[in-house]
């Protein structure tokens, strides 16, 4: 059950460029958050912007009852969060949303991340490890500086395959290229998990479809409330079970969706995320 609290900032760790790690104390999130879930949070001090912002839970620490966010500063809300000093309060509601389903069988789980889309995969990797499953992360970005969260995965026995469009780290090009190469090379994963820019999610969804692999995508439409009341986050979906496409709340029925139910191209869902104006 999500809990609404004024949470004190415990740790403030600037990473390269616009990226920063923010750690807050919030017992229920620290103990209850599951891989793929998010929080709605706002710097307690600022009147503007009016609304809270959604961020995936990067990791939790049951001992000191904290959770950590991996935040890319893109605008007013994230800037206000980054400006918090240890001890300052933020308003935070969580954990929220539908987490990832774990792969059915023991085969390898493949995660594909773009930019801050890496966030939900650290907890997923920990979970896989707990169940002694194997994981592999394909991690893409424009340049090396966008691939900030790498070390933590090593410790989890997860193979991390970086890719940068400018070739400054790992495979030079799209992250889906090493992914396809790996699958062509005989990789037979139990499931694909993807989080990142739309174009990437759609590409991964297609790859999964053509190869008949189950695929879960974590979407990040604009969100106003996080609990299903504002109806601002809806995503256009079409399930096999559905007579016709319908809107679903990404905050309660998502953010994780089976890639096959998402209505992808030139549709309203993408319009919604387009408004998100991906950085």
């Amino acid at each position, binding site marked *: 059950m999500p809990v609404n609290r004024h949470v004190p900032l415990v740790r403030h760790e600037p990473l390269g460029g616009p990226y920063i790690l923010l750690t807050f104390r919030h017992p229920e999130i620290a103990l209850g958050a599951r891989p793929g879930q998010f929080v709605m949070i706002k710097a307690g001090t600022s009147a503007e912007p009016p609304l809270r912002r959604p961020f995936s839970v990067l990791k939790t620490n049951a001992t000191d009852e904290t959770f950590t966010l991996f935040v890319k500063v893109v605008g007013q809300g994230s800037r206000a969060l980054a400006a918090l000093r240890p001890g300052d309060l933020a308003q935070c509601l969580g954990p929220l949303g539908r987490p990832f389903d774990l792969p059915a069988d023991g085969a390898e789980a493949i995660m594909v991340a773009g930019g801050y889309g890496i966030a939900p995969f650290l907890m997923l990797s920990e979970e896989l490890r707990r169940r002694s499953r194997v994981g592999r992360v394909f991690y893409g970005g424009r340049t090396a500086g966008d691939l900030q969260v790498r070390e933590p995965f090593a410790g989890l026995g997860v193979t991390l395959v970086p890719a940068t469009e400018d070739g400054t780290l790992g495979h030079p090009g799209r992250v889906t290229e090493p992914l396809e190469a790996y699958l062509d090379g005989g990789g037979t994963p139990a499931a694909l998990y993807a989080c990142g820019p739309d174009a990437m999610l759609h590409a991964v969804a297609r790859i999964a479809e053509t190869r008949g692999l189950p695929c879960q995508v974590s979407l990040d439409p604009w969100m106003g409330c996080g609990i*299903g*009341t*504002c109806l*601002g986050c809806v995503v256009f979906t079409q399930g096999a079970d559905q007579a016709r496409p319908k809107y679903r709340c990404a905050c309660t029925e998502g953010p994780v969706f089976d890639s096959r139910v998402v209505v992808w191209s030139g549709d309203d869902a993408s319009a919604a995320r387009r408004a998100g104006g991906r950085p």
Partner: protein
Amino acid sequence: MKLSVDIAGLHLKNPLIAASGTFGYGVEYEGILDLSVLGGIVSKGLYLEARDGCATPRIVETPSGLLNAIGLQGVGVRAFVHDVLPRLAHANTAILVNVCGDTVEEYAEVTRILDQASGVAAIEINISCPNVKKGGMAFGGDPRMTHEVVAAVRKATRLPVIPKLSPNVGDIAVFARAAEEAGADALSCINTLLGLAIDVESRRPKLAFGTGGLSGPAIRPVAVRMAWQAARAVKIPILGIGGITSAQDALEFLIAGASAVQVGTANFVDPGVYDSILEGLREYLERHGLDDIGAVVGTLAYPGDAPSCDTP
């Protein structure tokens, strides 16, 4: 200390009501918020049938405000009565239902269904949604249509009938009186202001629908003014709405003449907003030596002709 208010045959344990469309059907808050702290809840707008609502984007932030075009996505009144009402049976707060329609007859029909259901405390008539092509403003923007819709709904139920007025009019007093004459028991003032936000890079409206309804603190001065004008124009009680985030904000409406208030956008910002507002109201009454929230209603000392312009 008495915070409860009785208006239009409706008993509210306190004057704070969750505004339509900003609190879902109430059930979304299970586990997050104890609904019994609220005086009441107004459901998301309901038609006879389920609706998909507008394309996305549906919401965009503006300075101290929110612009939305949800388009009344909803489950339809029958599903509401069948699936939702039972879950609210023990919420221990007044359940008001926001009724919509493309035609006068649909408003009446939806109302009849709710009148037969159990657990509905009052009907709020949405004649002011700016985000639908039919109905909505068509009824709220014309006093004669307002009268017609309210009269039809009035005939369809014994429940208190509360038309929700639009701010997108020249003189809200005219609409308030039309609604009163048609048999309204109270008035909700106000719905959102019609606004337009443009993405200058794509040169398209930021909202898929185009225009949207402006809400939040930005509109409070306009909302307080309209609640005040409506209160002076009619004898029936007013539910003040618009930009309320704190006890001070709520008090502005009460002092202006509203008997109770509705909290909208603030629900998105902070699910805990009701506790802080209630605490603030109690603190205010204490400080002013009052033991009944009703004692502040309509106490605004509005200046006479002096001091004013061109005096001395």
